[in-house]
């Protein structure tokens, strides 16, 4: 998933980075094909080159040696709402047929079965980044026909990178369709909460290269904070 996400990023793009896999993916891209990627964190750090894998989005390692640190009013007004962010990464407990994401509640809002953390910046990232990449493990439960609560809108979602394959948003219907598979995964292994359509030509997602694996395991996440396998 991390390498596939990294390959989605073009050199020089301005990326709004979340913690965890998106952060790993961005730093992998920077060290391979996209050395001029500009990473902006919700916390206000711009152009960070963290000397250790940041554990939170506000890690002090994102500040030391970054190009700019600004207050959060500037992050949301001058960068995000201003339209300066080209790519935003989002994840969520639920992703639905139209790319809407739920990170708020499972069940009814007033009487939640499970109370999740809520939006954070997700509501506005989804509206203002020029394109949204979702990174999420795939299962019918995590990909229902409709989310219990729309925390962020699916309108700008372009791709959903999962552990089975990649979904894309179909421009005509607006719904997510299967676009690519990892080696060894069949279309029938990809089960979601609605009847998933597939592109007529499915891309074969290349496995991580030796270099990518080495960077991830030895340089970027040697303590295996995010890489579990």
């Amino acid at each position, binding site marked *: 998933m991390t390498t596939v996400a990294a390959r989605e990023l073009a050199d020089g793009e301005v990326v709004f980075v979340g*913690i*965890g896999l998106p952060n790993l993916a961005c730093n992998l891209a920077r060290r391979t094909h996209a050395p001029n990627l500009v990473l902006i964190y*919700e*916390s*206000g*750090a711009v152009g960070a080159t963290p000397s250790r894998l940041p*554990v*939170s*989005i*506000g*890690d*002090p390692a994102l*500040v*030391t*040696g970054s190009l700019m*640190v*600004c*207050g*959060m*009013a500037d992050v*949301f*007004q001058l960068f*995000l*709402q201003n339209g300066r962010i080209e790519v935003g990464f989002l994840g969520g407990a639920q992703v639905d047929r139209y790319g*809407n994401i739920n990170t*708020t509640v499972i069940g009814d*809002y007033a*009487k*939640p*079965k*499970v*109370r*999740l*953390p*809520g*939006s*954070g*910046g*997700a*509501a*506005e990232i989804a*509206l*203002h980044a020029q394109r949204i990449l979702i990174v999420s493990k795939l299962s019918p439960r995590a990909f229902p026909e409709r989310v219990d*609560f*729309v*925390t*962020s*809108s*699916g*309108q700008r979602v372009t791709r959903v990178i999962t552990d089975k394959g990649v979904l894309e948003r179909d421009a005509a219907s607006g719904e997510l369709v299967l676009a690519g598979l990892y080696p060894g995964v069949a279309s029938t292994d990809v089960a979601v909460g609605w009847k998933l359509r597939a592109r007529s030509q499915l891309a074969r997602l290349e496995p991580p290269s030796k270099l990518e694996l080495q960077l991830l395991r030895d340089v970027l996440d040697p303590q295996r904070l995010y890489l579990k396998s």
Partner: protein
Amino acid sequence: MRDGDVVVIEGFTHLICFAAGHEIIRQRRRDLTLCRLTPDLIYDQMIAAGCAKKLVFSWAGNPGVGSLHAFRRAVEGGTLEIEEYSHFGMVARFAAGAARLPFWTLRDYAGTDLPKANPRIKSVKCPYTGEELATVPALNPDVTIVHAQRADAQGNTQIWGLLGVQKEAAFASDRVIVVVEELVDERVIRSDPNRTLIPAAIVDAVVVEPWGAHPSYAQGYYDRDNDFYVGWEAISKDRAGLAHYLDEFVYGVGARAEYMEKQPRLIERLKAGEQMSAGVNYGF
């Protein structure tokens, strides 16, 4: 601080004033409306201790770890009132409060369920283009507590590293308490006036409390205690564990110095290394 106050202890990951939160718990304040973008462990502890009537927030999790369990128990059990925004919505509420405007305008929430969950998210029509834009109401706390790296005795306060919404929260508030790692001579402040985020003119009290932000961090003073954040998952998962933590580390200590004495290895483990800024010339 009085029972029933609207209270803000801000700081985005950085400079979260746990010392103040613990003191509020010890003083057994009740019926507080607690506001923060990220309630974090500090409000989880205050909720567990029974200080909070209501929570105003935008992201209630333990970053990179999991849930805030006291928060979850209270919300899922229906014992805590909540008012929920996105981060931008909360930032905008503080911006309006700081500018003493009744509302702030933002482009947000189209296609989401947030306005349904929170009727205080409204809209306004642009008098130039006619388009509808989202609005949030101003947030003007009774008390805001800002943790900072340094201030002079008058309260002129300097912060570097992540700035969060500390400036806006302070200017929005009726009363402002600044808690600092270090009290410095006015000359230090005056040597770099662009670094001052909060002026003495709006500060009601200055408290010196080194390590007062632990387990969060203070850039240039000490690192974030990530182990504590990870450990909170187990501590807070059941009421008894959390109560035990509060007994030992909050009720069981008289002040911050005792809290630090109980954890003698913290300083050695977390004390910051040195990476000094290049200076600038203010001469003319």
